[in-house]
């Protein structure tokens, strides 16, 4: 028995070692590289890169696109998961699959389909031009692309929770004559609030970093349609490595911030769930 226990202890530390080594190399080292490279030229170089006009405009655009995507996806996620989990209807499976599709579609293709839909070759183009709406190679295109790639993020977090909760409580409330809004607000929402926040955080993270789809739709107009990741790519292509990594470090910091928020939310949610 003793030998067995010793073996177990060895296994434990070997596995922990593997985990730390693997994650250290795969996750931590890239972060460190970004930070080290960002400060290679000193604080002054770093600050001038970060405070650059184009950087700030790119940051603002990124935040705008992220905000739009998160708001719309939140609305969608709430309605979609309510519809899918609280009601039975035909084609439900197909609907849930369709909702999930954007995650598996390559970002490049996501960009391409919007080019095909709204680009100059599309019949919609002339129509949109006539009413002075620019979609592709303009901010709306970027927002659309961002919405697309993060489309299922919130519903995906909500559906399992709402599924597990069942619909008894809603039915009971409905039997007593409560209307949809009351049922949602008083019965459904308290169950999902942490999952919702969690989904919003994930959605924000992904929306901020989207590169492929946005790259296809952006047109790379400096100061106009460059998001932060695109701006980084441009800096990188301009041999401005220090600024490129410096701007990247903004995103790294945001990513870390998001992870912290996520962890806090998760443990809060767990606590609530257990009590």
């Amino acid at each position, binding site marked *: 028995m003793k030998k067995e226990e010793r073996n177990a202890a060895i296994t434990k530390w070997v596995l922990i070692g593997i985990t730390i080594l693997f994650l250290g190399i795969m996750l931590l080292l890239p972060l460190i590289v970004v930070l080290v490279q960002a400060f290679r030229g000193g604080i002054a170089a770093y600050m001038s890169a970060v405070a650059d006009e184009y950087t700030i405009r790119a940051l603002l655009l990124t935040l705008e696109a992220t905000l739009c995507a998160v708001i719309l996806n939140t609305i969608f996620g709430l309605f979609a998961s309510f519809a899918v989990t609280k009601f039975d209807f035909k084609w439900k499976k197909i609907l849930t699959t369709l909702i999930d599709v954007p995650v598996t579609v390559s970002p490049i293709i996501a960009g391409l389909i919007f080019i095909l839909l709204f680009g100059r070759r599309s019949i919609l183009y002339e129509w949109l031009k006539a009413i002075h709406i620019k979609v592709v190679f303009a901010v709306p295109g970027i927002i659309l692309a961002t919405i697309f790639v993060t489309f299922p993020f919130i519903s995906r977090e909500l559906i399992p929770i709402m599924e597990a909760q*069942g619909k*008894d409580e809603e039915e*009971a*409330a409905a*039997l*007593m*004559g409560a209307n949809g809004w*009351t049922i949602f607000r008083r019965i459904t929402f*308290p169950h999902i609030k942490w999952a919702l926040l969690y989904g919003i955080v994930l959605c924000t993270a992904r929306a901020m970093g989207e590169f492929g789809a946005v790259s296809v739709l952006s047109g790379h107009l400096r100061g106009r349609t460059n998001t932060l990741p695109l701006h980084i790519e441009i800096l990188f292509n301009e041999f401005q490595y220090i600024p490129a990594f410096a701007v990247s470090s903004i995103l790294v910091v945001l990513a870390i911030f998001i992870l912290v928020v996520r962890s806090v939310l998760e443990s809060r949610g767990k606590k609530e769930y257990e009590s």
Partner: protein
Amino acid sequence: MYVELKDINKSYGDFKASKSINFGVEKGKLIGLLGPSGSGKTTILRMIAGLETPDFGEIIIDGQVVNEIPASQRGIGFVFQNYALFRHMTIYENVAFGLRVKKEKKKYIDERVRELLKLVGLEGLEKRYPSQLSGGQRQRVAFARALAPNPHLLLLDEPFAAIDAKVRLELRSWLKEMIEKLGITSIFVTHDQDEAIEVADEIIITNQGRIEQMGTPLEIYQDPQTPFVASFFGQPSFLKDYQSFHSFEAIDNYTEAIVRPEFVNVTKKNEVQKYKSSASEGVVTEVSFRGDSVEVQVSVNGEKLSAKRSLELQPVTVGEKVDVFVYRMLVTEGKRVHLLENQSLHEDSVII
């Protein structure tokens, strides 16, 4: 009739959950819908509540066809199987919910909630959450919540299923008392025959989407109309060749005979057997203690029978030869059921 179902049909895909259901419930009665799981009893309950819509047929409550009336306006209280208490609300809020939705005055709500909590014996627990209550307490909350808006009809789906055995017995009589006291028409669903017999004024037995029989517990017990009902109660034994037992009227083309343990009298050889002449000899194959009695399995002419013996009597042992007398049996013939009395019982009375 306060509640009436007329020719109700309902199917889920290929599965027929209800096949031309017809029955009526008188005002103030407590009805038990009894049947094995999958027999369609919950579907009936949910259709009455308006949680499901029948494919065909009419549901009438208080003289009004309610098919088109949404669940929330049927004036029904519903107790869910798992109670479906609002986990994120306190007990007080749970009970008050229905009243708040109806926009009742605050003062009235408060009075009513306190009155109900007192009625169900949960005073002082207003601020608790459902997760902090025991199973029995939760059921009481569910009951109070269902009653809060003064429904005319109370529907309960397996009200005792989620409670452990000891509390269940207590709750049964509590619920029966409570409903009698309030005089509210109630229908509850159960798969437990004891529960139905003990609690219900009338029982409706369902099987495979059909109603097999409706009647008082005694009627159903004593006078089963279908083979299913006949075999549903107790732990019946089935005889292939009942005529190997003495003094039973012969029926042609019978399917089988059903004998309940209480129909059988097993006596030791040294005990007095009143109807010795019409008793058969059997061998004890199994003896088990049942708390309040002894269950004895005997083998008679190759048929297995189960019987009960009082604890006061001398114990029997496995392998012992005993006399077995059958008072009566239920013989099925196709869809019909015949109650056959042992004829020696009548002869006897004639002699006396």
